[in-house]
């Protein structure tokens, strides 16, 4: 029964890249894996999941009450199929972090959060203390393993798989005690922060919501995602879904450019897997320069327009 089940993540339309990252992690466990897609009218998403290299079977569980990602409803379906699996993996995104501990608790096991590397099927590495320490975690082989996969640590598995898709109806009823109301999402055509190859971020020094247009324009010019520090989000300069850091999104782009971000440890946690970190800040003593690969001590309000011109 050494077999892994991956919980797919999607927004009702497209499969989230976190699923292919979980597949990479599952592959290194060295045992076969299946994927379950929970939602309403998910056949297209299930086909996308079936395309992930290495997947055996994709289970598409279709029910109206699964349309929105309420942990209680999704957990019930995963639990109904848990018997056939030794390992159950979900992403370390807010979806996975909401859902997976429910599954672990019902199975009576502790969860391994944020797997960043696999040593063997029950021995992992994960960051703690905002990434200031990496620990070796050993899970008991006598119990099921429930874990979240730290998506910034894994490359997406390649396409080219040819998994069978099996449709199933839901096993459980909707929980009546929890009701989905709505999702307010910043409409953005920019690349998703968690998968973008380049990310341009602004901090408190941007000083206003309007000034953040400088960040957006530069991001659009080079096809980058747009991010922010907690201070900028707290100040209302940009929406919460742009926050990068320990309590926001943990990202690993090839290029990360931070403008007017001082570099609190909580922010550094979110970017230290980036390929190249560029920091532009007026304050030469800003801690961001300790981790920057390329630093420029200058006023962002003169640098950004110059960059736009030079890159144009």
């Amino acid at each position, binding site marked *: 029964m050494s077999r892994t089940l991956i919980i797919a993540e999607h927004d009702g339309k497209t499969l989230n890249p976190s699923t292919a990252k979980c597949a990479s992690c599952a592959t290194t466990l060295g045992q076969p894996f299946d994927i379950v897609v929970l939602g309403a009218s998910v056949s297209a998403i299930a086909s996308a999941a079936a395309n992930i290299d290495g997947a055996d079977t994709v289970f598409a569980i279709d029910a109206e009450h699964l349309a929105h990602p*309420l*942990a209680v409803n999704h*957990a019930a379906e995963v639990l109904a199929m848990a018997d056939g699996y030794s390992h159950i993996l979900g992403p370390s995104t*807010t*979806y996975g*972090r*909401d859902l997976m*501990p*429910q599954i*672990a*608790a019902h199975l*009576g096991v*502790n*969860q391994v*959060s*944020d797997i960043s590397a696999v040593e063997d099927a029950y021995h992992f590495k994960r960051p*703690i*203390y905002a990434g*200031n*320490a*990496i*620990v*070796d*975690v*050993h*899970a*008991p082989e*006598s119990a099921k393993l429930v874990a979240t996969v730290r998506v910034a640590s894994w490359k997406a598995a390649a396409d080219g798989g040819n998994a069978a898709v099996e449709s199933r109806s839901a096993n459980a009823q909707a929980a*009546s*005690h*929890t*009701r989905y*109301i709505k*999702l*307010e999402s910043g409409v953005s055509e920019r690349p998703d922060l968690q998968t973008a190859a380049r990310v341009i971020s602004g901090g408190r020094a941007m000083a206003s919501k309007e000034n953040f247009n400088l960040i957006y324009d530069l991001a659009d010019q*080079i096809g980058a995602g747009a991010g922010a520090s907690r201070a900028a*989000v707290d100040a209302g300069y940009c*929406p*919460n*879904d742009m926050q990068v850091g*320990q*309590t926001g999104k943990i990202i690993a782009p*090839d290029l990360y450019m931070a403008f007017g971000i001082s570099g609190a440890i909580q922010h550094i946690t979110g970017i*230290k897997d980036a390929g190249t*970190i*560029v920091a*532009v800040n007026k304050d030469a003593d800003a801690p961001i*320069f300790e*981790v*920057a*690969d*390329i*630093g*420029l*001590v*200058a006023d962002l309000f*003169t*640098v950004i327009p110059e960059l736009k011109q*030079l*890159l144009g």
Partner: protein
Amino acid sequence: MKILVGIKRVVDYNVRIRVKSDGSSVDTDGVKMSINPFDEIALEEALRIREAGLAEEVIVVSLGGDECQQQLRTGLAMGADRAIQIKTGEKQQPLSIARAFLKVVEKEQAGLVLLGKQAIDGDNSQTAQMLAALWNRPQATFASKITLSGNTATVVREVDAGLETIEVDLPAVISVDLRLNEPRFVKLPDIMKAKRKPLDVIGMDELGVTAEHDLEISHYTPPPARGKGILVENAAELVAELKNRGLV
């Protein structure tokens, strides 16, 4: 209604963490300890709900050795009515913590449980969800706004895609995010008053909770250091460097 707030004693968020050279743990000798910042926000929210007349009592609960009484006293000084220490000498993992909290929640007949969305030491983000699952009650994680009305709570959640709103029936477990509120400062007279507030101690074993399927942590290592960077003088040099490295 009683509100139960879980608070964890952790290394203060301003402290720069160092891994011990023998890899046995992180160095916590002489380091400042505080209430986990997310738990402080949970407590602040509970106090505001009580102050709005929507709850009668706020109880802070912590699990650990006697040193966690320091954080419970801080919670009392912030305004909690009483405190409970679930006493244990061992480091407990989220499943056991959730099981122990459940015993207290049931005994106290709590109408709402507020917890931080994660502790900044273990960064697990599990206890609230586990408690909701074991209690068979609703969960609303990563809350940035909570509105109580009668028997329901409307909760705005900070999720990767933006802000999600859900409605849950009470009793429920809510885990809180950073932007929910700004916790109050504790005043000296409140610290004096807190010394007279009740703090009950219950043994973890008295609750009948024993750890099982624990994870074992064998080794701590510092994160790999990034190579030393370079400084450039102006935007033109920056662009040249980026082009050189094939990044733009």
